[in-house]
């Protein structure tokens, strides 16, 4: 219910806005005075979350339908967002993703493909469009939730990890390209989060972040225009170790 009415209002687009962490990330943006477009495939939940953000903060928060897999709709989506917000957003945050069950995806290529199409191709399709706008304007940020699973291929989830690994490499290249245009590209690797996906899994509590906790860290990192972010500092060290295990050894391991 803040009432600062700047001439150039701050605005951001959250893609995959109905996930638990996206919701709290959107809330951080709204509390900081941003108007938002919340875009998700799940219309019903997306509307509930947009209403929640409006009610808690008094900011504008517009729910919009977005399908990461419908690549040919992405151009239209970008234009519609602009007309809804009355301007191009300052930045975009990509929170959508799809994690298939590894064994099921090995047996059924359509699941493997959906993982690659959502986590990688869909991300590239939408982010390239924003990259072009922000680069021309020489201002903005692109943040995306990738995964520690993309840092090294493992038998437990490589059909997810490979797609996220592709996303991480893509963001690296994009960061390199947009640096000259002063556009920040932030790669977020959350590690375990306490969500429906992990509920009931026997995970060590210090490695698991709650969605609001993760969102606060992510928001601070976006504000500081960091390059790579782990939600919990511990993960940085775990991944350094995992990345440095020699391949002849790693291929024998079950991690």
């Amino acid at each position, binding site marked *: 219910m803040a009432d600062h009415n700047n001439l150039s209002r701050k605005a951001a687009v959250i893609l995959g806005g109905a996930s638990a962490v996206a919701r709290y990330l959107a809330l951080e943006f709204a509390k900081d005075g941003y108007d938002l477009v919340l875009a998700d495939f799940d219309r019903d939940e997306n509307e509930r979350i947009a209403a929640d953000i409006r009610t808690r903060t008094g900011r504008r928060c517009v729910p919009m339908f977005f399908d990461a897999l419908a690549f040919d709709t992405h151009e239209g989506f970008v234009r519609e967002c602009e007309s809804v917000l009355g301007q191009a957003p300052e930045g975009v945050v990509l929170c959508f993703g799809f994690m298939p069950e590894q064994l099921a995806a090995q047996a059924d290529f359509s699941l493997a493909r959906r993982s690659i199409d959502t986590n990688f191709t869909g991300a590239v399709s939408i982010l390239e469009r924003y990259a072009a706008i922000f680069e021309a304007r020489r201002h903005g940020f692109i943040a995306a939730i990738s995964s520690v699973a993309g840092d090294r291929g493992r038998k437990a989830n490589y059909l997810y990890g490979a797609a996220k690994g592709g996303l991480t490499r893509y963001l690296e290249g994009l960061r390199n390209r947009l640096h000259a245009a002063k556009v920040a590209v932030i790669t977020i690797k959350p590690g375990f989060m306490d969500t*429906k996906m992990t509920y*009931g899994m026997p995970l060590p509590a210090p490695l698991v972040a709650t969605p609001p906790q993760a969102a606060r860290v992510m928001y601070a990192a976006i504000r500081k225009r960091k390059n790579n972010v782990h939600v919990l500092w511990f993960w940085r060290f775990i991944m350094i170790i995992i990345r440095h295990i020699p391949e002849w050894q790693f291929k024998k391991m079950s991690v």
Partner: protein
Amino acid sequence: MGEPHKTMQLSGWGRMRPEPCRTYRPERLRDCAPVFSDPTPDTLIARGYGRSYGDAAVNAAGVVDMTRLNRMRSFDPVSGILECESGVSLEEIIDAFLPNGFFLPVTPGTKFVTVGGAIANDVHGKNHHCDGTFSRFVRELELLTASSEVLLCSPESNADIFWATVGGIGLTGCILSAKIQLMRVPSAYISVDYHRCANLDAALAAMEERDGAYPYSVAWVDCLAEGNTLGRSVLMHGRHAEPKDLDRRQADRPYAVQTAHKLPVPFNFPGFFLNSWSVQAFNNWFYNKHPDLEHVIVDYDRFFYPLDSILQWNRMYGKRGFVQYQATMPLEHAAGLTKLLEALSASKRASFLAVLKRFGEQGPGLLSYPFKGYTLALDIPNHGDITQFLRDLDRMVLDHGGRLYLAKDACMSRQSFEAAYPRLSEFRAIKERLDPKGRFSSSMARRLGLTVQKEAEHG
């Protein structure tokens, strides 16, 4: 299999008798129906942040953690009505609306409770003598019943179910959402008047005389004082501070309070940490720290939620936990309070926190706790033969026409409960009608015979 779940050791806030409970945690409103219609658990109970002290939200067969259902739906600044899912906490409501000048019209002593829990226990606050319980400000609620229907209940429609659900400790169904009335306040501060009373009689007399002039009233009681000083107290009377009462820094931003840094209690303290000497030392310090002062400006957090700044303070009582005992006795039987305090003082069972308050009129909730009288709430560490000690206290309370609070209780017998809640049969009739198979149940419900008769017979 069925819905995702995990087995967790759950107890009430008093941490006595934890049970391994099959726990579900729906993330979205639409995940609720599949959980509640999952046939694997025989019985289910909704749970919020687990601040009920006893076994009200403990159920080995199935517990549904509602804390992820915390979406706010709308707020109308003209009427002050907030509609939200039941897992929204009071803290979230304060954070969102106090900056705009709205506060909870009734709040218990912790803000870490859900709206659903506040309704299911029909909680009260320091303003009960003026404003009644939480349910007075609930305009409507959505109840998911055992037959998987969603009923809209309010004092106007499905009123019988509404009044069974408020204070009904989750046994009529699962509260999915509610519309609650918030209240405009002039600032985030309370202007407090402190008044020391040398003993219980002085405290009761002072409450009777002064309560009418203040919306908030509560007394802290030294439970270890004996003889002439039995029940010596510090009375705290408060009202919302107007901008003119505030200093310049506060008046510039009357709704902005820097909430206290939260101090965690990272592990169980040894059982002897709170003993009669350490508590006596604290009590002496507290009594002497509060001479009679008027118009002391205190922020809302320190006034309403002094213990919230110590996260997991229940660990201070050690691994065996404690019982929170809250008894209310009618005004004409205030002598029962003296007996209670004498028993406590004589047993040297240190109560770190004892709180005395004069309740106003009883509300229409069938199992709603407060009625016109004096209520005394104390912590009793779980040492020695606590069951027998509590039975003795229970008898004293019953003999003086009093009763215990379900949100606090962990040990009361079914007989004591039945004797003290005169509208129980009305509640049972509604429970039987809404939930004939006893789908909604808890350890407390079975202990007190609150679930359907069939189960009670072989339970």
